[in-house]
């Protein structure tokens, strides 16, 4: 972590596991390090998909590229977690987990958190926008906040 990061701690505690990129997901996580939310896009039929997959479910092509989302969307569903199941969330409860439907990129669903919402502020249909969270170890994660 740099000194600048420490002025704004990560959403969860430092022992929260961070993503381990693999052959398939490396471009996605590299995009995150550059604060770009990349969605996998079939170059044959144009279907977007998230989570990443080797094969397009629509046309079975294995050809794809990555398209940057603006990161605007709406809350499709959510939960408020009150019972911690890992040390990294012990001090964070109650916290929210949201599923956001993106406005672009075919309306794919992305799982994340609303960083500016307490347990009573989250609702389905809430318009949200992207924000970034430097979680250390050379990883930056996409999170969301209410859209004005």
């Amino acid at each position, binding site marked *: 972590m740099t000194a600048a990061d420490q002025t704004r701690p990560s959403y969860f505690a430092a022992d929260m*596991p961070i993503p381990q990129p693999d052959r398939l997901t490396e471009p996605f996580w590299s995009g995150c390090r550059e604060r770009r939310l990349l969605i996998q896009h079939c170059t044959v039929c144009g279907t977007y998909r998230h*989570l990443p997959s080797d094969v397009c479910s629509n046309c079975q092509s294995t050809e794809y590229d990555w398209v940057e989302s603006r990161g605007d969307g709406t809350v499709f*569903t959510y*939960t408020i977690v009150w019972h911690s199941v890992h040390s*990294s969330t012990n001090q964070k409860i109650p916290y929210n987990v949201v599923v956001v439907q993106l406005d672009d990129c075919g309306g794919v669903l992305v799982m994340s958190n609303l960083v500016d919402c307490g347990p009573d502020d989250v609702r389905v249909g809430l318009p949200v926008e992207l924000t970034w969270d430097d979680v250390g170890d050379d990883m930056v994660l996409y999170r969301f906040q209410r859209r004005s």
Partner: protein
Amino acid sequence: METWPLRDRTSIVGVGETEYHKAGRATRSEFDLACEAVRRAVEDAGLALSDVDGLSVYSGERSAPGSVAQALGFGDLRFVNLYPGGGNSACGVVHNAALAVGSGTADVVVVYRSICQGQSLRFGRAREGTGLGAKALGRTIGGGQAFSHPFGLMSPAQSYALEARRHMYEFGTTSEQFGAIAVACYAHAQRNPRAVMYGRPLTLEEHQQSRVIADPYHLYDCCQESDGACAVVVTTTDRAEDLRHPPVLIAGAAQGLAAGDGGDRMRRPLDLWTSAGLVPVAKDLYRRAGVGPDDIDVVQLYENFTGQVLMAFEDFGFCARGEGGPFVSDGKLHWPDGALPLNTSGGNLAEAYIHGFNLVVEGVRQIRGHSTAQVRDAEHCLVVAGPSAPPSSALILRRSR
């Protein structure tokens, strides 16, 4: 469409169970319990261990088929089969056993599940991987879980709460309606001395006041974590006629998943967020058994979480899509007066969480007439494996005439 060639041709002829405990309370090993459950099931059938020539288990079964066969001195095995997954397998393993004996591949197939969450990783804690590959969470997380764990979504309750919340949003379903399911299961467990929650009745008020685990799910919306094992024996109905108990006919069996559903549930079609994903399984099942929802006398329906039970009632055509809330909350799930008693042993919520396989055992008891909450003249029992956990499975058990 042609009649399913296996309708009523195979039967469950034996059941066996160990004691059931809260996770961590078993004093014997998981493998020991697996062997005991299998032994008891074979004995209950009136067969010898050497008669067993097939095994069908969940892919996450730690008491491996080869180890159980060796320990129990089975004869030559002709059929060994795994159904992929966890609670979704509860009926698929029986279906596969029926396919084996119905096709003449094997004569006597034993199906078992042993699970001691006190001796391995608890399902309710954060884990890396699933099934036999699950391990404690480390500093990094790969694969699909990299898209959920770092955002604090680390347990089944949290994951299934997302679907429950969406159902509430779309259809106005309430937490009290989820609670009605838990209250029914707990009420039935009060009649079952073997149930972990025997002697611990639950009111809707207590459900509502219980702590929230992952909103909208309270503590009592969630299945238990347990130690125990159970088993059943499947053979042909012809052979069953000569055995100890009247055969419990496998009228129909079905397994699978809805188009577009599968391993990555973030990519499932949006309408499957408010379904148990069992619509095609239900359709196949009813057609194979030659019955419909109105013919079902009693239901054993896998409770991972109450909202998924509610959605499964919709998928199985007991009520229209979106109407599961009013359907479950008018008392019909309660033995003895309700029209459709649910989980008459207490189920995963209140009997024990033997990964839903105890629901199959209770289905057999209902058809035999031996349940502690016996539905009078029960002719058809529907058993449904893990809802919203594709590929899942279901059975219709029928009394032989």
